[in-house]
């Protein structure tokens, strides 16, 4: 039950946040942070999970289709859930100091808490469809948070870019999940039959789609472009969503599927995608001048490491790196938040020597940055060693990329720290240390960075974390020690430091080289080209169709129907027709006469009367076929429609007949004939159903299940109640639209764009008639 509570609490707090935000302003964060306490309370089940295995909890949701809100805390999920809750708690505390007085606090905290709940749910979900739901929810909340300062164009653009890319991945995930459930025989991650799944034909497409989703969410090449622009979000959001938690959702997915990936070609592909991302991310991070952009590209690079490690099956090293990265990157982001807040700038070129004015901030930043650089005695050193060891086993190319990437990582880490050292330079003269409540929430994270390195033994700190995840991956926790002895990995680390220092010192020529190598095309220009193309295409479609007259619209729609009918004729011939009773034929002729009459009518009034003839003819058919309900409905609809038409008749223009070119007339006749044949085929197909008729079921159980003798009505309100609900919703929408159109018309002056509005009335009346007529 604690599991459910841990997930539900942030959602519940999100409901309160608007009110607290109004009452307390930014300080609401101190109260709302409590929403993550149940999540932190998961610590109490750590022992149980370690001794007795995964803890499960589930709530029924849609029992008739077997959909359950099923959650499962195995070691890995539990570890990550603790990270989400812990960092979320600190982020909310930090936000209380970070947000200005004039921000929309309620909205910010609502989004952030919704995200927190969704992330907890995503991590702990066992049912794959639930996992997909939470996955999408994190994308949406991320969109809302990136675009939080929606007055800025860059924010809106960044938010949209993130949403487009991650939602595209989300769609892929949905299909992947369906395929996995089909192939694995269960919609639960824990219940998947891995052997059957690997042999099923769904395996390869499912894996491709799942990896697509994971790469887009975790900003792997070539989807890395959304992460740097997502940095338009407020800094607590960048720290929480775009470095510590959400961007790792894709990594989590790869980690959870690592048992499936193992031993396939996918594992190799994932390894190289990860390494390429690691290299490219750190290469780009090196040339950034905005501190936040530097960290963003660094995050891309570190996510590459995680993907490479999980992909190559080295879950132990990956998990250690994941924990370390969450700690040091969140710290660094929050430090940038303080620097930005106190100095008003994030530009590396304008800042230096800040250590004198912001000594405590520097104290927090130095271990985190050194951990990122992979220096002892911090956690990052240990996981970097593990990374090198893992890559050494993968061959010479992986280790080469790993070392080059790490050299650049070292250089940009040093570059990040350079803002604290050297002569004091800043645009704002009166810079002073931030208030305690501002830097205090960072302190636990910075402490974790130090502790992860200094106490790197099993059952403590990072060792304990990775050990917790061990049963999920079936690895045995090796003792994590700072000093492994003079191994190859250590030699490579030393090499990294030397080359990194050299790169930092020689950064000017290197930067010039980078600038010269900048390609004219990159992922971003491609994204904007695609987006622009899509916009032009849709604008073209709209321009080409919206301006067209009613006749053209009708022609297009009917032609499409005719094509479908022709295709169905081509696929299979309709079964033979049974001879209808003679009185039905007579009624049918009546309908036909009405239809022909409408075509031939010279005035609107006679057309209306002919239309009524067709309508009453169909009522007669219903009556002859012993369907009194349908006949009654049809009669009423005809009556109401005819009277409605008459009541607006005098406002309608004179019916003008347009002559059309012979070519067009021939085409129209062809379309009309095609539509007629399509409907005819459809009716014949219904006559001889492929499967058993469902009507027998309705007739048999109408009394016992629905409690009524009138089968039609029981179908409407009971068996097919959901359909009816949808239909009356449509009806209500029609009512509201007509109301809006006509009210606006009545209120407005009589000139202006009266034409379109006036025509809407009778048109909608007729639409409504069509809706009802199916009853």
């Amino acid at each position, binding site marked *: 039950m604690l599991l459910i509570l841990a997930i539900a609490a942030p959602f519940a707090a999100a409901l309160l946040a608007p009110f607290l935000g109004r009452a307390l302003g930014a300080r609401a964060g101190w109260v709302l942070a409590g929403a993550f306490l149940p999540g932190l309370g998961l610590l109490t089940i750590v022992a149980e999970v370690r001794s007795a295995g995964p803890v499960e909890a589930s709530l029924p949701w849609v029992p008739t289709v077997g959909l359950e809100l099923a959650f499962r805390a195995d070691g890995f999920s539990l570890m990550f859930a603790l990270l989400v809750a812990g960092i979320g708690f600190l982020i909310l505390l930090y936000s209380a100091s970070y947000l200005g007085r004039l921000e929309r606090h309620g909205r910010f905290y609502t989004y952030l808490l919704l995200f927190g709940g969704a992330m907890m749910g995503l991590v702990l979900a066992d049912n794959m469809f639930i996992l997909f739901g939470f996955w999408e929810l994190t994308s949406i909340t991320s969109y809302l948070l990136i675009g939080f300062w929606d007055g800025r164009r860059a924010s809106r653009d960044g938010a949209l870019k993130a949403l487009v890319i991650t939602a595209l991945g989300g769609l892929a995930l949905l299909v992947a999940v369906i395929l996995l459930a089909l192939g694995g025989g269960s919609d639960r991650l824990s219940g998947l039959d891995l052997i059957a799944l690997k042999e099923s034909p769904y395996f390869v497409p499912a894996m491709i789609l799942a990896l697509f989703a994971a790469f887009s969410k975790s900003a792997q090449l070539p989807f890395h472009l959304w992460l740097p622009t997502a940095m338009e979000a407020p800094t607590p959001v960048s720290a929480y969503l775009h470095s510590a938690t959400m961007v790792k959702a894709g990594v989590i997915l790869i980690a959870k599927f690592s048992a499936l990936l193992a031993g396939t070609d996918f594992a190799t592909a994932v390894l190289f995608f990860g390494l390429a991302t690691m290299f490219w991310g750190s290469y780009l991070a090196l040339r950034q001048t905005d501190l936040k952009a530097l960290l963003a590209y660094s995050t891309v690079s570190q996510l590459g490491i995680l993907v490479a490690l999980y992909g190559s099956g080295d879950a132990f090293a990956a998990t250690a790196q994941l924990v370390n990265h969450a700690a040091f990157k969140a710290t660094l982001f929050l430090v940038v938040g303080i620097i930005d807040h106190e100095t008003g700038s994030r530009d590396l070129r304008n800042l230096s020597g800040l250590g004198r004015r912001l000594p405590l901030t520097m104290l927090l930043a130095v271990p985190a940055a050194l951990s990122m650089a992979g220096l002892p005695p911090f956690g990052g050193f240990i996981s970097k060693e593990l990374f090198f060891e893992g890559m050494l086993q993968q061959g010479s190319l992986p280790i080469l990329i790993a070392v080059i990437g790490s050299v650049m990582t070292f250089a940009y880490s040093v570059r990040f720290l350079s803002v604290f050292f050297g002569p004091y330079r800043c645009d704002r003269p009166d810079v002073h240390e931030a208030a305690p409540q501002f830097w205090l929430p960072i302190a636990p994270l910075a402490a974790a960075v130090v502790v992860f390195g200094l106490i790197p033994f099993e059952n403590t700190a990072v060792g304990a974390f990775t050990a917790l995840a061990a049963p999920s991956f079936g690895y045995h926790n090796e003792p994590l020690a700072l000093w492994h002895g003079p191994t190859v990995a250590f030699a490579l680390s030393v090499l990294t430091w030397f080359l990194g220092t050299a790169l930092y010192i020689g950064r000017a020529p290197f930067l010039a080289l980078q600038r010269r190598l900048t390609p004219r095309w990159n992922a971003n220009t491609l994204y904007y080209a695609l987006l622009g193309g899509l916009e032009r295409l849709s604008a073209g479609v709209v321009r080409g169709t919206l301006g067209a007259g*009613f006749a053209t619209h009708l022609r297009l729609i009917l032609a499409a129907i005719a094509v479908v009918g022709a295709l169905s004729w081509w696929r299979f011939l309709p079964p033979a027709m049974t001879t209808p009773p003679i009185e039905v034929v007579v009624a049918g002729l009546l309908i036909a006469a009405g239809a022909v009459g409408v075509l031939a009518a010279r005035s609107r009034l006679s057309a209306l009367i002919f239309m009524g003839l067709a309508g009453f003819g169909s009522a007669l058919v219903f009556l002859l076929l012993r369907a009194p309900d349908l006949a009654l409905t049809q009669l009423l609809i005809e009556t109401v429609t005819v009277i409605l038409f008459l009541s607006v008749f005098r406002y309608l223009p004179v019916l003008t007949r347009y002559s059309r070119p012979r070519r067009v007339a021939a085409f129209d006749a062809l379309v009309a004939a095609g539509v007629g044949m399509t409907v005819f085929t459809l009716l014949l197909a219904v006559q001889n159903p492929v499967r058993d008729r469902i009507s027998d079921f309705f007739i048999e159980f109408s009394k016992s299940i629905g*409690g009524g003798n009138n089968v039609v009505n029981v179908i409407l309100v009971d068996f097919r109640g959901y359909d009816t609900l949808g239909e009356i919703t449509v009806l209500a929408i029609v009512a509201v639209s007509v*109301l809006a159109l006509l009210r606006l018309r009545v209120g407005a002056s009589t000139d202006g764009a009266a034409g379109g509005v006036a025509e809407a009335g009778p048109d909608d009346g007729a639409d409504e008639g069509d809706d*009802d007529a199916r009853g």
Partner: protein
Amino acid sequence: MPEDRVAETVEPQPGAPEVFFKALATPILFALVAIGFHYFLRGHNAPGGGFIAGLIVAASALLGRMGRDLRLLTIRTEFLVPWGLLLAVATGVAPMLFGSSFLRSVHGHLVLPLAGELEWASATLFDAGVFLVVVGTTITIIDLLAEENRLQRLGEDREEEG
């Protein structure tokens, strides 16, 4: 806005209704409403139901409109639409509160002291929602169109050759 509408309704309409029509409109109207409710109530077992009853009542409203410029209901009919929808959804949600699924229906027999044995089905409530939506939508549209009488006759048909 309601005041406006009342003012408009007294405006004499061109081609005033015939005197017979005028005289008979009211009794027929009430008869139609009664038939409508009858059809609604018997709907579960004989031809009828919310859709049909809604249309009958709407037709009677139309009659009232044409015959006597009579408003069938003094309430604002557009509000029937959301309430009807809400009733239908509530009927669907109610079983969920008892641990059953959305729109699951129940039915049974009820013995009343005077009326004797009565058959009931929760679907009737759902049907009542359908009835309200149909009545609300139709009468709203009819009333709005009747209001439109100030609208000038349009000069040109907007249809164009595509």
